[in-house]
């Protein structure tokens, strides 16, 4: 601690150069934070997936439906604890394509039994059970459109037109929140019984089933049993863990992780050169001063530590400020809620970022620090004259 003033003084020696380097490190870590937010948004389905949950889809494609009576047959398979179904409705608000969001007819009691990550007050749950046209919406969606309980929401669906008219009308009876910060709260859920009765075609069909098994270790065995149950039927199934299903969904958009890593790699390589050059130049300019410090008794190791501490301070100041800014961006919410409904920077990414700042400081400082450490005092002092 007693050497802090020396480190701080050296950082302030060339204010413009230090500021520009700090700014470049700041931008790099802000970008790191934002890319982590995007990565998390794409992978939220994977990270939020329950280890004990399976998804049963049509064997051919997710867009093909399954009969609703499969529910009882799945429920009878040993190892199955709960079953419920979802259907992709593709609702559009006010007939504007940009007002698109995830909307699904579900069975309320079974839905909440399967998904404890969605939190709804009890009175609103009861209101939903009482109201056939009732819908519950996530708080992110409420924030996006400024809805409130009691509002009547007209939706159109290019997949499921309503019998006798295009527009579906729902009444908001509840607003759910997420049990965890990265829970997707941009969904719109309404009752399957109302939907099935009023849709123009496709009655008795559902999109896919969610299945909870008694133990994650039994998931593979139960999945095989479900697929065997419906083998050679007109509606054969494909059952897989929820995480694998979500990962497959993300992969359809390309390998997001590799793309983000590529961008980050390029950014950090550039920053390495910028910060490394700053430190090397800074040490070169102070050869005589370093010689003086050694002459008055600073050991080689202490000089090495001083230069490393300086480069770490530079990287940490800029990096932590960048991470803080990324966190603030996440707090402000998604600028494109229809594309990135979950906009959250998990603490583990902040911890990784903080670790990276130290690594960046050490890597950029090590060569100049070694150079300073090896400096011969008599040679360094001669440079002054």
């Amino acid at each position, binding site marked *: 601690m*007693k*050497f802090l*003033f*020396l480190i701080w*003084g*050296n950082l*302030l*020696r060339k204010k413009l150069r230090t500021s520009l380097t700090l700014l470049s490190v700041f931008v790099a870590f802000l970008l790191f934070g934002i890319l982590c937010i995007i990565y998390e948004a794409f992978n939220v389905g994977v990270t939020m997936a329950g280890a004990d949950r399976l998804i049963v889809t049509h064997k051919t494609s997710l867009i093909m439906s399954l009969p609703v009576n499969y529910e009882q047959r799945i429920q009878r398979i040993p190892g199955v604890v709960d079953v419920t179904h979802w259907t992709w409705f593709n609702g559009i608000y006010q007939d504007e394509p940009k007002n698109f969001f995830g909307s699904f007819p579900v069975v309320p009691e079974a839905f909440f039994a399967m998904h404890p990550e969605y939190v709804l007050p009890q009175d609103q749950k009861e209101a939903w059970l009482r109201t056939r046209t009732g819908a519950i919406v996530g708080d992110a969606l409420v924030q996006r459109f400024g809805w409130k309980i009691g509002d009547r929401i007209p939706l159109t669906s290019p997949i499921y037109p309503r019998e006798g008219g295009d527009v579906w009308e729902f009444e908001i009876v509840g607003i759910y929140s997420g049990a965890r910060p990265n829970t997707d709260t941009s969904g719109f859920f309404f009752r399957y019984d109302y939907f099935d009765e009023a849709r123009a075609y496709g009655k008795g069909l559902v999109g896919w089933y969610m299945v909870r098994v008694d133990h994650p270790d039994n998931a593979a065995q139960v999945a095989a049993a479900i697929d065997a149950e419906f083998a050679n039927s007109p509606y054969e199934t494909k059952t897989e863990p929820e995480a694998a299903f979500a990962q497959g969904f993300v992969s359809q958009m390309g390998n997001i992780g590799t793309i983000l890593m590529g961008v980050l790699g390029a950014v950090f390589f550039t920053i390495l050169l910028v910060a490394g050059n700053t430190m090397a130049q800074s040490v070169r300019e102070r050869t*005589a*001063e370093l*010689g*003086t*410090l*050694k*002459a*008055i*008794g*600073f*050991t*080689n*190791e*202490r000089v090495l530590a001083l230069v490393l501490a300086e480069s770490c301070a530079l990287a940490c100041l800029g990096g932590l400020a960048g991470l803080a800014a990324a966190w603030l961006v996440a707090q402000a919410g998604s600028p494109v809620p229809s594309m990135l409904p979950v906009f959250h920077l998990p603490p583990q990414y902040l911890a990784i970022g903080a670790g990276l700042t130290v690594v960046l400081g050490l890597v950029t400082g090590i060569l100049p620090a070694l150079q300073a450490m090896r400096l*011969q*005092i*008599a040679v360094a*002092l001669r440079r*002054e*004259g």
Partner: protein
Amino acid sequence: MSDTNGVLVDVRNVEKVFRRGSETVHVLSGLNLQVREGEFLALMGPSGSGKSTLLNLIGGLDRPTSGSVRVGGDQIDQMSDRQLAAWRARHVGFVFQFYNLLPVLSAERNVELPLLLTHLSKAERRRHVDVALKVVGLEHRKRHYPRQMSGGEQQRTGIARAIVTDPTLLLCDEPTGDLDRKSGDEILALLRALNQEHGKTIIMVTHDVHASAQATRTVYLEKGQLSTEKPE
């Protein structure tokens, strides 16, 4: 710190050879020098005669090619780099021609630097710094940065830094070489006071006959050899 004969610095048969490419340059050849405790020695000689090299050897900033250097009974040419650093911090104060202050630190912070290597508390360090600055007459300038001070004041700050740990030996390399006559005289008076009133042993490299007149003894270095007679 001195041995039983009162000799503080004992340089024996020291040879220093530098290599410049394929050329070998003998800077010091079989040089002997004894400096008694409490002495103020002026070391004179033409440029390139090896004065600064000898000073560096005595201060443990460099090592002889052969021969021995003992200071206060410690054979410093046998010490490791780490031991030498600790020894310098404890026993030697350096005064440089160009002051060698850190421009980013105030006078008091510059003076405090050698104390960072001790176990003194912050308050104790501050006390020592205040005393050193008072000795050199700069207590009123302690918050000023080197760029805000004259050459003479910067050199006095450099001297305060050299004495703040209360070393026995002060090594001064052309301490007045970058100063005008008036400032130079003030520095010489200060060094003489440190020698006479505070008992510091001083070895001063200088070109200046006027400066050497302040010393209690003057030796001349030419062609790697010492003499008490001024060379022709």
